[in-house]
């Protein structure tokens, strides 16, 4: 769609007004800190507090790479490679221990066992992830949520923290297929249909908030707003809601598009192009 230039500019301006304060704060902060760092150049590390392991010290990602070679090779391209815990030595690349905790005990023992893992494994417990992803932690406490805090799922079932699993979102391009993370459990919704809801082609997160939501079924919104974001037709006479060239005003008094018992086959239908069944 080609919008007139002034409309695009107006849209941008509306957004920029909201961004002014954060942008100013960031610019100011960046300027000051850049001045400071240039005047006291030293370690290149960027820190977060790593998970605590009693008696363990940071050894650096190079040490981890001696055994965990396949992960280390691609890790520099992943999102998580940008963060480091407090470094043990200047310039030491320490990303692994940002999430797994200091590795010295693990290294000295030549690995871990079921009883003495000596390392934090976020794949077993998501607490290490929540140290940074504070907002996501709160989302898992909303009334409708995936059971991560209940320990029936964990973060790595859907996300690849190292950025090289071809089937998970953080994997980026590597043969990643849309909705595949969700489809491994939700085959019923992601199966083939004669008439497919086109929203499925844009991904499950078009309508669902995967971590948690105040709405049933992890929906991003309740009511007709969820559907109208895409399906609202150019308005005619005021007070009439036209969707698909049909006046839906009376139907929407009873509920929303799906819950009003009409378009119930929201993921797709084998019998009806309007997803009535």
């Amino acid at each position: 769609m080609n919008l007139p230039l002034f409309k695009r500019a107006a849209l941008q301006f509306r957004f920029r007004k909201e961004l002014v304060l954060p942008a100013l704060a960031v610019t100011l902060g960046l300027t000051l800190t850049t001045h400071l760092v240039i005047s006291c150049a030293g370690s290149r590390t960027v820190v977060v507090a790593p998970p605590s392991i009693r008696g363990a010290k940071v050894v650096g990602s190079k040490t981890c790479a001696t055994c965990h070679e396949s992960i280390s090779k691609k890790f520099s391209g992943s999102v998580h490679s940008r963060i480091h815990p407090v470094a043990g030595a200047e310039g030491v690349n320490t990303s692994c221990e940002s999430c797994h905790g200091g590795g010295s005990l693990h290294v000295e023992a030549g690995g871990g066992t079921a009883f003495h893992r000596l390392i934090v494994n976020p794949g077993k417990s998501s607490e290490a992830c929540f140290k940074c992803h504070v907002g996501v932690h709160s989302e898992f406490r909303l009334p409708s949520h995936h059971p991560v805090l209940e320990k029936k799922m964990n973060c790595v079932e859907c996300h690849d923290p190292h950025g090289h699993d071809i089937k998970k979102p953080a994997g980026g391009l590597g043969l990643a297929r849309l909705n595949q993370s969700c489809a491994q459990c939700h085959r019923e919704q992601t199966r083939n249909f004669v008439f497919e809801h086109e929203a499925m082609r844009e991904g499950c997160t078009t309508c669902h908030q995967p971590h948690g939501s105040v709405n049933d079924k992890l929906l991003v919104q309740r009511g007709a707003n969820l559907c109208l974001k895409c399906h609202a037709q150019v308005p005619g006479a005021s007070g009439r809601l036209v969707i698909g060239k049909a006046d839906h005003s009376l139907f929407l008094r009873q509920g929303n598009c799906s819950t009003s018992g009409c378009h119930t086959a929201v993921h797709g239908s084998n019998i009806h192009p309007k997803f009535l069944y």
Partner: protein
Amino acid sequence: MQSRAFTLSFGLTALSVALSASPCLAEADFTKQIRPLLQRKCWKCHGPEKAKSGFRLDSRAAALKGGDDGVAIISGNSADSPLIHLVEDEDMPPKGAPLTKQEIVLLRSWIDHGAPWGTVAKPNPPAGAVKPPQAEEATQRENAPTLPAGELVDLVLPPASGENVEFARDIHPLIQRKCAKCHGPENPKSRFRLDNRASALKGGAEGVAIIPGDSQNSPLIHLVADQEMPPEGEPLTQEEVTLLRAWIDQGAKWGGVSDTPDFAFSLAPTRQWFSVDGNEQKFREHSWMREGWTGGVGQLTLESWLDPDTRVTAEGSAHGPANLDLTLALNRQEVGFVRGGVEQFRRYYNNYGGHFDPFAISDFKLDQELHLDTGCFWTEVGLRRTGWPEITLGYEYRFREGMKSTLHWGQSTQGGETRKIYPAYKRIKEDVHILRANVKYDWAGLLLENNFMAEFLDLETQRYEVSPASGGAVPDTFTTIEDSHEAFQFSNTFSLQKEIKDWGLLSGGYYYSHLDADAAFRQSTMNGMGALVVGQHWFAQPIIHDWSAHIFNLSTRLGPWEGLTFSGGVQNNWERQNSVGSSTLFFGLPNAMMAIPPFFVSRVSSSKQKVTTTEHATLRYDRIPHTVLFAEAEFEQGRIDYFERDPGALQGFLRDTESRSRDQDYRAGFTLSPWSRVSLNAHYRYRQQEDDYDHLRNEAGGGANVGFPGFILGRDLETREFRTRLNVRPTPWLRVFLTYQMQATDYRTETDAVTFGLPSDTVGGDHLAGEFDSRIYSLNVVATPWQRVALNGTFSFHDSQTRTANNGDPAVEDYEGEIYSILFGGSYQLDDKTDISAHYTFSQGDFSQGNTAEGLPLGIEYRQHGLQAGIATQIGDNLRAQLQYQLQHYGEPSSGGVNDYTAHGVFLNCALNWK
């Protein structure tokens, strides 16, 4: 000043050049000058980890032997040694700074003096006759020039200590410090383990390393004395080598320290009790558990070493009637593994529908306990042997069975008003059998991987929905919708990955998948007793799907530039699906063969072909002190051709659409940490998705289509996102974490005109269909102000608004509201054995709507509190007990209070350990 510096610099350079040309050079010190030089400049590619071109420079034998390109060092003749030419021409090292003139001079000197390695000497002196360092250096100088080229030299081994060596005191800490990193139980280098005596004496891929009673001929001693081991870090001191020799000479006993324990076992039985006052189903839905007494095993861990190379492990938990998680594994070094497990959990659902306050009966409830069991059984066997392909074969059975609530609520009519609030549910039975075969092989640095999967899916669902009800508590008629779906899908992914240089990685892959599926559909209308009545009776069988996909991918990571890493790739995705089915739309009473026209028999069909190309690029730069900068861009272009046809439906339908999409996604930001106690990161993201639909044919009932779906001509989504995080540790005992996140998305839709001559007619065109704005603020504080106290608190505030083009229709109200969340917890250590803890959580959301008069308010307003308080204590060496009280309260005014509950619970856990 500048002039003096220039003169000095020129003088040094001239001196270096003069020295390099001199035929008579002072001898270089291997330990102090040459070894560090080799380590710094050469070992990365020609050291213990890698041997590019088959050439290693970490031992004299290997260095003089040369590599695939022949001899590199001719002892005593630097002028003809290819190594010198390579470094002088700056062909080596290929990356990083070349050798300085002075370094080349040193290297030439070392070669000209016979390329001695370490402390060169004649046959070993008797034990105890240690030469003073000066004497050793003198010997080295004396002997080096006379060594014939290419001859291996023996080392002067430090003598064995004359003391009685205690393994636990003298050797075990040394092994832990210097050897365990590479020679522990997990993936030991050269298959050599030093974590138990049997493995240590057995040796590794290079043969026996320790000969008890004979340190002189034990290769381990030569490796450490030669400083070949450890390959990184500080070498062993002379005193440490003497101790190691003495330990071997005294029989290499492994006393005072236990090997890895033969057997360890822990079991944590749990028992809990919950009492619920209020909506029990809602409590179950929120907490994923049932009220009353439940018990099980909180944690089971078992580990047993059958021998030093074979380990059996079991881990799991079991709780309540349907929650189980157990994994068993048998691992054997240099052979492989057998693993298996079961997992199952139960999800509960509330059995209330919607709520409409003005109705006499404002909430309806199903007389059903809704729950869905999800689980799997899996087993896999793998081959893991050094130098062999990694092969893993597996079988997995997944299932889902039970009933879940749906949001397809049935209608209730009271006082002339109809609202859809009657609860609905669905039965599900899903069985999936999955076979997997994965092979991975590192072939001379080229990593080849193939993953094959075959999946059999058998799915049956049965939806129950209420058709017109008179407003009473019991529905008059039911509609059941039965779906079945059987599918066989296989997919194969082949990928390869090659590290082309230290700074470059290239990978590519090809994915192919094919699916064949049969489906069936049946819709029946029944009365409250379950008997068929006059109404819609639709069925379709068979429905056949044929789907296949090809994906090609090429990705790379490049980093030849100092601090700058580029990763990017391109992926092409091609998919095609053909579906066809016979449908019968019958209205009447099938049993009585009473059909009420119109009666349709139709052949529905669709075909879709989708081609997309995605490009992705990421830049990461980390050479600005304390800073990492990054920028990402992703583009996708797509084309979908689809054809849909349903000739027999009420209006008939035919659609042939060509759709084109363009997606662009940009993200840039930084992570900054000017001091070790502060870090700040932020990024900005802009994404635009555009879709254009060209409806080549859009027909219904033989004429132009008057309804959905061919009314959308184009869509445009623009998303802007900004996120920032500040992490501050003002003191070692306090960490503060602040985050801010905002997102704004505009949804624009372009549609057809509507010209029916009705008030609702529109001119069509482009319009702002919806807007979404969201802001999230979070604060997290972790504090340990005193050694015995740990506190953790999080506060987050989230507000969002969704506005759509409702054209003033009062039935549709904007969806906006706020969520507040608080998490606070603390623990206090009473003594070494006992600690107490307490946690409080609070969440409140208000998305309530006021469209009661003209619509159905679907927004939610809720408030929930959670409190946990408990004590845990260690009883003896092997028992830890935990007692906890829990309170949960949930209130939901927007549902008229029917979902409210208050729950009290007691939780007891005892963890027992045996070793």
